[in-house]
């Protein structure tokens, strides 16, 4: 009986230690990723059934709650703008010259035919506040040594109940993120193909988003340019800026 109690205590201590380690890793990941203001020029490559489309956009991001994106190419998408403030998302389409609020089931629709949904854009990326974490082990991905960490939702209102992430041991960048449904079905997979050291931070500059229930190669997201701590005027995050 004593031996059993001792084993349980050691196991509990080990688990607690693992959780603390995992939490520390997550905090470092977030510290590496977090910045007050960002300006990003990105290219989204959508692998469709018949053709590949490239969509280029400029984004201004303030913290985790505000972002403004303007699509600059191709011609069909040029001038389309998106504004995110907390849980609200508005979209401006120049062809209709109207601002529409994306809500309800529309959030789950594909973003410009990609594997990303509008909801994916809305997601709160602060992992530590929504998930408890535990290290499952070590692994190697794209020649990088990683921790395999399991994230479990702390509250009932988190989109994905379970996530399994692979975190680069040296650079503290998430190299792979598998997001699961409540039933255990793998829904989304985010894989990092390239990292770059920019302004003192390691950042994923080539990411592949894959809706695992859909066929295809997924959607590539390439960061062409990124600037941290840029000055963003406050009008940028207003609805009136969508029509400018």
């Amino acid at each position, binding site marked *: 009986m004593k031996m059993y109690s001792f084993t349980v205590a050691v196991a509990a201590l080990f688990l607690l230690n693992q959780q603390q380690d995992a939490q520390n890793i997550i905090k470092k990941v977030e510290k590496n990723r977090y910045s007050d203001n960002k300006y990003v020029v990105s290219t989204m490559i959508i692998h469709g059934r018949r053709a590949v489309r490239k969509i280029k956009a400029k984004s201004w991001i303030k913290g985790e709650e505000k972002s403004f994106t303007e699509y600059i190419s191709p011609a069909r998408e040029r001038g389309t703008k998106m504004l995110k403030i907390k849980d609200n998302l508005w979209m401006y389409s120049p062809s209709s010259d109207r601002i529409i609020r994306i*809500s*309800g*089931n*529309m959030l*789950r*629709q*594909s973003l410009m035919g990609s594997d990303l949904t509008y909801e994916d854009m809305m997601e709160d990326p602060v992992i530590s506040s929504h998930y408890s974490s535990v290290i499952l082990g070590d692994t190697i991905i794209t020649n990088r040594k990683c921790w395999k960490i399991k994230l479990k*939702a702390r509250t*009932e*209102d*988190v*989109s*994905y*109940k379970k996530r399994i992430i692979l975190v680069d041991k040296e650079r503290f960048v998430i190299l792979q993120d598998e*997001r699961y*449904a*409540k*039933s255990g*079905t793998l*829904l989304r997979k985010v894989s990092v193909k390239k990292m770059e050291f920019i302004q003192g931070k390691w950042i994923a500059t080539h990411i592949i988003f894959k*809706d695992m*229930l*859909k*066929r*295809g190669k997924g959607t590539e997201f390439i960061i062409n340019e990124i600037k941290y701590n840029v000055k963003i005027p406050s009008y940028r995050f207003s609805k009136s800026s969508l029509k400018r």
Partner: protein
Amino acid sequence: MIIPVFAIKNTFRAGIKSWLNAFVLSLSIVSIIWLQGLYKGMYDQGTRAMIDAELGGGQYWVEGYDPYDPFSIEDSHGKITHVLSEMIKEKSAACILIARGMLYKQGRMYSILIKGIDPEQEILSIPSGILKEKNNGIIPALIGTRMAKNSGLKKGDIFTVQWKDSKGVFDAMNFQVSEVMKTTVQNIDNNQIWISLNTMQKIFNMHSEATIVTIKKDIKPVNAGLNWEFKNLDFLLQDMKTLVQAKTAGASILYIILIFLAMIAVFDTQTLSIFKRKKEISTLIAMGMTKNKVIALFTLEGMAYDILAVIIAAIYGVPLLIFTAVKGWKMPAGTDTYGFALGDVLYPVYSLNLVFWTLLFVFILTAIVSYVPSRKIAKIEPAKILRGSTF
């Protein structure tokens, strides 16, 4: 009495001219009755199908539910009150839970409505009995033929559905098509799948909740609680009524053309008749008949075409209308997309009311069209005509 007898005799004496006029008029009468019957049949058939498969004797809607607002569907669910629960237990009502989801089939995704219904319900003509769970981890689903066609699903197919439960958590599971139902009611078919209510409440984390509670036909609605509002059939069938009214209004252009052609024929005949028979008119006036009586005679002659037309219409129209009412009218391809709950065959409905009002309408119009040229008789100077000069 002499004037009507005279009028009928004169009409028959006119020979082929009268019969042609009457035939044209009969064509208008039969066409109008047939078209009106077709729209009446469309409404009756549509409402009957909707009541049987979707509306029952009316519906309780949870607060905030609006079938035409896709944004509100996610929040449109609420606890079933004690009153409604009792009605459901007594089999006087059936509840339906509605939520949105994404269907994945062959790597493509479709936005769909997921509807949960009690497999034991007997209120609606949906074959819900096949939705009982089989404990193999796959949820049995029922779809309609339109949904099957649009999504490429067929009986036995397994597909994945992804949704967000009431707490906002993503979930996905496999469903299997247990049956493809053939229904004329698009509201229970288009872009939607039906599953067992219990399963849906469980997987969506909406225990004891529903969106709609449909009551049995001929049951008196009661106050079901604050969050539930009763919608009667007048309200629920309003769209159908408006659609049929719009279609009927569109068809009235055809009635106007048909009637116009028939009336032109009557008008021309009357004008020519008065011109050709001016000596006869003058003689009648010279013999002591008042001008008004002569006008009445000619007006009645015109109206006699209408009586003849009714007889002719009865001869060929009644068998034709009965035949279409019994055999129905095969709907052309594409009618399914009109928004009506119609079948492949449409059965016209002819009521006595419809026939009576159509005949009365044509009768009054013929009387007016016959009277207008006859007024010229008042200007006739019999002495001059009989002497040989014209008026």
